[in-house]
């Protein structure tokens, strides 16, 4: 059992209960254990205390209390993050935001919505549907994940190819900082009041504070949609077909790929979508727009490109029901693969789209060398790979092999000009790879920015930036010159009015 820590002291628990009600403070180990993971089997941490505020003011009161006591805190949405980002250690309080689940406003005229962070992604689109609108970022986890989690991770989804990721859809935020102050960032029209702090916050993985109110853009539900399924007898040709579609200038709404292992897992599950089991890969391509004729014409062009790049067959969903079935297979693919083995590591990396054919082959080689089953299901149009490793964590030594293979996959993606995460974030899992893509100054800059929001590094500590790899940032040099007080250095011939720089 985890030893008691300051975060579990009776007085703290009582004070938390005084704010949110005793029912919403979880201290018993079995209850805390349900928050020990975020979907990634390789990381497990048991939080000291779990608290579930139900109102924005309760979040503020909880954060203030923790600030006074100097106790670390970790924000958490639905806990589907897959990078260890929403895990808290025994000395920290986990603030679960799922009770803040109100849709505060839908403004159809201006096509925006204001929500609390715990609203589940798919609920927002459902609420906007009567107005002919939807919230476009659609992570495959959208039936579970929260908009707050999406903001913190800058989440993507299949339809982000055409419509952009979360950052492109967030207009304004209310954020509770580490000291409990609430700040409002951005404006409902999307123009910032100064530098783009909304943009900076999105993707900060819970390190800059807790988003308590989120204003997002809604888009019209497209009037015309065509969904196509193309199958290939090699991964390479499927990858080449992706590049060809992208280079054609037609931007599909979505362009997803699944390999044979994934296809079979889906077809063996209750989500069987009719994907051809003998195909080495399938591409799911969706085109949408305002006019049926135009979408039809673009769909015909794309089908032609796919065929001329080696597709064995291209089939178009005949109706909405078939379309849903094709998509359900894709969106539930992780679940289906979960049945292949006891544990599944869902990896996340990005490569330039033209590198897909080579990188997919390299991943296959790495899997073979480590004797592991790797299945691929991913956002091909963005070059955003999800190589998924199935294994049984109880087998001695296997977890280490999975880790080593993941590391090699990351290295291969970086070598191809890519990066270590396209949507799941760095969290804990990718910390060790950060120095492979950023030098000491760039990492130090990130850390310094984090300290502007959270000087004590108390919100979600130990995530995103590997502190040991940061170069020193304005340590002694800064102190020596004493410029923080705002005196212009003496060598200058000019002085600009101080107020231009004052806090």
């Amino acid at each position, binding site marked *: 059992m985890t030893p008691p820590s300051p975060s579990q002291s009776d007085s703290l628990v009582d004070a938390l209960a005084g704010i949110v009600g005793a029912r919403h403070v979880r201290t018993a180990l079995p209850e805390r254990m349900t928050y020990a993971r975020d979907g990634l089997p390789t990381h497990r941490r048991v939080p000291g205390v779990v608290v579930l505020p139900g109102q924005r003011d309760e979040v503020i009161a909880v954060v203030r209390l923790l600030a006074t006591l100097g106790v670390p805190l970790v924000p958490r949405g639905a806990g589907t993050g897959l990078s260890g980002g929403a895990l808290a250690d025994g000395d920290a309080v986990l603030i679960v935001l799922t009770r803040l689940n109100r849709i505060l406003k839908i403004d159809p005229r*201006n096509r925006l919505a204001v929500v609390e962070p715990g609203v589940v992604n798919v609920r927002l689109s459902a609420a906007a549907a009567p107005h002919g609108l939807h919230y476009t970022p659609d992570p495959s986890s959208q039936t579970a994940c929260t908009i707050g989690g999406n903001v913190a991770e800058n989440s993507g989804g299949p339809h982000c190819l055409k419509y952009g990721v979360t950052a492109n859809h967030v207009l304004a935020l209310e954020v509770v900082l580490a000291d409990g102050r609430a700040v409002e960032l951005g404006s409902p029209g999307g123009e910032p009041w100064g*530098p783009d702090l909304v943009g900076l916050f999105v993707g900060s993985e819970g390190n800059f504070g807790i988003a308590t109110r989120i204003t997002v853009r809604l888009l019209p539900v497209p*009037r015309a949609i065509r969904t196509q399924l193309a199958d290939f007898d090699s991964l390479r040709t499927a990858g080449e077909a992706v590049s060809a579609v992208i280079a054609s200038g037609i931007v599909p709404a979505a362009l997803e790929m699944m390999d044979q292992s994934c296809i079979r897992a889906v077809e063996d599950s209750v989500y069987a979508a009719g994907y051809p089991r003998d195909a080495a890969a399938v591409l799911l391509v969706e085109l949408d727009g305002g006019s049926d004729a135009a979408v039809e014409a673009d769909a015909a062009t794309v089908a032609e490109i796919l065929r001329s790049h080696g597709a064995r067959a291209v089939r178009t969903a005949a109706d909405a029901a078939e379309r849903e079935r094709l998509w359900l297979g894709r969106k539930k693919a992780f679940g289906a693969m979960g049945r292949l083995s006891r544990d599944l590591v869902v990896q996340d990396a990005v*490569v330039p789209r033209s590198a897909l054919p080579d990188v997919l082959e390299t991943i296959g080689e790495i899997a073979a060398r480590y004797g592991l089953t790797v299945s691929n299901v991913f956002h091909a149009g963005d070059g955003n790979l999800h190589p998924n490793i199935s294994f049984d964590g109880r087998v001695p030594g296997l977890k280490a092999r999975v880790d080593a293979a993941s590391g090699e996959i990351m290295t291969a993606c970086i070598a191809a000009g890519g990066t270590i995460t*396209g949507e799941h974030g760095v969290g804990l899992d990718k910390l060790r790879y950060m120095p492979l893509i*950023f030098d000491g100054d760039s990492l130090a800059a990130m850390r310094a920015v984090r300290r*502007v929001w959270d000087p004590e590094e108390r919100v979600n500590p130990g995530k995103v*930036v590997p502190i040991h790899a940061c170069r020193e940032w304005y340590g002694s040099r800064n102190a020596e010159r004493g410029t923080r007080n705002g005196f212009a250095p003496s060598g200058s011939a000019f002085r600009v009015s101080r107020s231009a720089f004052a806090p």
Partner: protein
Amino acid sequence: MSLVDRVRALLGSDAVDLAATPDGVPRVAPASPDAVALLLGTAREEGWRLRVEGAGTWLPADAPADLALTTRRLDKIPAIEPQDLSATAEAGIGCDVLRQQLADRGTWLALDPPGLAGRTLGSVVATASSGPLRQGFGPVRDHLLGVTFVTGDGRVVQSGGKVVKNVAGYDLTKLEAGGFGAFGVIVLVHLRLRALPRADQTLVLEGTREDLTQVAEDIAAAGLQPAALELMSPALARRERWALAVRFAGSAALVAADEAGLRAATGGRFTALRADEAHGCWMRAAESFATRPVTFRVGGLPDSSDELLDLLQHQVGDEWVSASPGVGAIRWGGETTVDRLRRLRRTLAGLEVPLTVERAAWPLRAAVGHFGAYREGAGPLIAGLRRTFDPGEAFVVAVEGTE
């Protein structure tokens, strides 16, 4: 050793031009990101204050400083990748040169910032100035995959990367886009491109502002997705009356369908422009803003566009105005005073609408600030970020004004 001698010793004598600036401030043109870092590291040690310039066609090169750092020798395009629809360009490249090279490879940067065609890419990023294409393709930040910048004490920082999706680390690119150079000198930019559209059609309708505002609403309600939907004042459009310009870009089928949809939604009143006419129309409007002494932008909501235009008309006039009613953004150009701008900013702040001064002579810029009205609590964050990236206050930027 004098300041100029020091810089010459650091970067070579050809990097310094003494007589170049109207106010006699020595102008330094580093030829590489490393040279920028070297210069800023020294500036930090010596306490020099710098203003950063691009081609000097947008923001007047008049901020009081010891040195002017121009990015104009940072003009390389290290990579254009048509297969990936991405490119990497140095910050001092002129937008016109970049556009041509991209077009030669079948690609397109869907940004049409105000100003002259030769404006540097870095200046567009630093000021986050998008144009009418923001309707269809979003603001400047949506086109950036990553940037490399140099801090006020000479550190080179990278953020983002070259791939179209990337959440590795905090997104510092967002701070540089629209930071007006207060958080670093942008030296290298990774761009998201689009394929050069096969079809590109602009149509124009003249009328009263009220009438055209209604037409713009009808277009939005019809579910059309134009690349641009811009309401322009008569002077800007060089027409008798206000003009609503609609641009469709994409595959031939898409553009044909949208054009038909436009005619159906608006009763066939628009006139289609020839390609050269369309080019001229958009270019003249963009360039006009570089000829007015002051330019600012305001960002409201689509349904407040009309009300905001009324307010501008009332407080500062509306001779040179361009508005994207579909996204609620308005750009204003003209002549005005410090007091008027301050008053307007206060009024707008009450309506939750930010006003950003894009260009003006230094005295006005310094007094009013590019920004100036912050929501509660944001000021300390911004000040903290400035200290982080410019601890010695090397950059002379009129961030907040003096009110």
